[in-house]
């Protein structure tokens, strides 16, 4: 699979829903260390709503591009999970979807455009800088990797494998940072050594995208 077509969004969001259902307790625990333990709950809710919104949008048919269901997913997350990460994730999907309103399917270039808009939306709303130990610290490297892959004309599968690896590394790097935003910020030094919870969500999303494409690919070959 070199492109994610509109109908395949159902499977992708099904996977995202499953991932955040499986990761519910782990994210609760992670957010519990320097936060309020809600991340697992909100992400779980958010991606249930996102999956259902995507299904509804696909069922409605219509000739919209692939961006529309992504926007709808974002709006559903905004409604179902209005926490920090919920709102940022919602903003990400709404902006990313908007960038792909005219696109038919997602190839490497479209994926880079999606994550560019996603990243910029999150930064605009949350005002976090690189190194602040947030989601942005995964989104930045992830985006650079995808833009490089797009420039190099890499197929979607390779681009995602690389991007996931970069995101995993970037996630690991958040351990050395000191939290500057949200609930974790008050823990200051205590947050050092811990992996950022929001960044973990960022990584899980790209990981799910990679797994979706890789698996579909394996199914094909």
């Amino acid at each position, binding site marked *: 699979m070199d492109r994610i077509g509109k109908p395949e969004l159902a499977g992708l969001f099904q996977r995202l829903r499953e991932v955040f259902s499986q990761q519910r307790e782990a994210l*609760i625990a992670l957010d*519990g260390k320097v936060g*309020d*333990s*809600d991340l697992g*709950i*909100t992400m779980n809710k958010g991606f249930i709503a996102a999956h259902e919104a995507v299904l509804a949008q696909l069922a409605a048919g219509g000739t919209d591009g692939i961006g529309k269901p992504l926007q709808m997913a974002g709006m559903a997350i*905004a*409604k179902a999970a*209005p*926490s*920090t990460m*919920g*709102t*940022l994730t919602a*903003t990400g999907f709404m902006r990313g979807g908007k960038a792909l309103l005219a696109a038919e399917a997602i190839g490497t270039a479209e994926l880079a455009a999606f994550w560019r808009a996603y990243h910029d939306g999150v930064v605009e*709303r*949350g005002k976090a800088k690189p190194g602040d130990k947030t989601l942005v610290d995964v989104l930045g490297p992830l985006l650079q990797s995808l833009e490089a892959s797009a420039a190099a004309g890499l197929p979607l599968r390779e681009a995602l494998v690389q991007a996931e690896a970069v995101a995993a590394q970037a996630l690991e790097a958040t351990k050395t940072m000191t939290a500057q*935003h*949200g*609930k974790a*910020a*008050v*823990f200051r030094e*205590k947050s050092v050594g811990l992996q950022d919870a929001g960044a973990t969500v960022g990584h899980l999303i790209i990981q799910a995208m990679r797994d979706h494409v890789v698996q579909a690919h394996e199914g094909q070959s």
Partner: protein
Amino acid sequence: MKKFLNEPEAFVDEMLEGIYAAHPQQLTYVADDKRCLVSVARQPGKVGLATGGGSGHLPLFLGYVGRGMLDGCAVGGVFQSPSAQQMFEVTKAIDQGAGVLYIYGNYTGDILNFDMATELAEMENIRVLSVVGNDDVASSVQGEEHKRRGVAGIFFVYKAAGAAAEEGMSLDEVTRVADKARLATRTMGVALSSCIVPEVGHATFSIGEREMEIGMGIHGEPGIRRGPLLPADAVVDEMLKPILAELQLGQGSEVAVLVNGLGGTPQEELYVMYRRIHQVLGGQGVQVAQVHVGEFATAMEMAGASISLIKLDDELKRLITAPADTPFFRQHPQAGR
């Protein structure tokens, strides 16, 4: 989990059903969404005041919707922000053409959503301003006040702004008053036990049988120091110190005081604390214009308390002592302390 509830997921909506059933002459909702709570009464031309935030803090936030205080409140899940859409629905419903002021606490989730709601409102030509409560002195150092949490002291901001709107002030004037009240208010909390979020089902944090945590936030955010539970007077002294220093209270200053229980602490203990506050303020020649002792901003069943002081000038004093009638706060005309 020792709670009266049915399904944890239904907790907030069932609570709201109880609220509407108990206060039908005062509260209702819009957009067919119980979490978009507004006052039944509309006062044409009045600046609209909206708040919003997580559930689990009653009387915060919705309890102060009513005559002389707020017009609407977007209600979130337990310790969760409501959505931007819900805030926007409340905003549309309460706007009387004079614009709307958002007053809410300094939490990232709430900020992100109120910012989104502001954008939505502006697209409909509703003018919206915001004042973000950040009274908790324990949550960041002086000079970094913008990082501080909003806790019980927001009550004074609601009260001052609510009375100002009631007097017919413009949006800019009401905002000026709210901001003045915000800047004049400081709070410090102390926690003795954890709370339980229904959907989580176990204590948010653990704390020893003889420990206290000074400066803890109303969602269990860490405080300044944890140590053995001291006698009430020593606890109060420690809590008052930074408040007094920052407000630069001295001979002849006038304040209103809020002694707030976090949910699991008996009112008797709050009065033991107020006794000491009164002694300390009296010793420094500070006049107490008004005192409130009770539950104003809770953290479910958390045992603990907070102390808020607002330094008054004539205008703030007038507004703070003006009458109010909301489901959770009533003040007769001419209420002194």
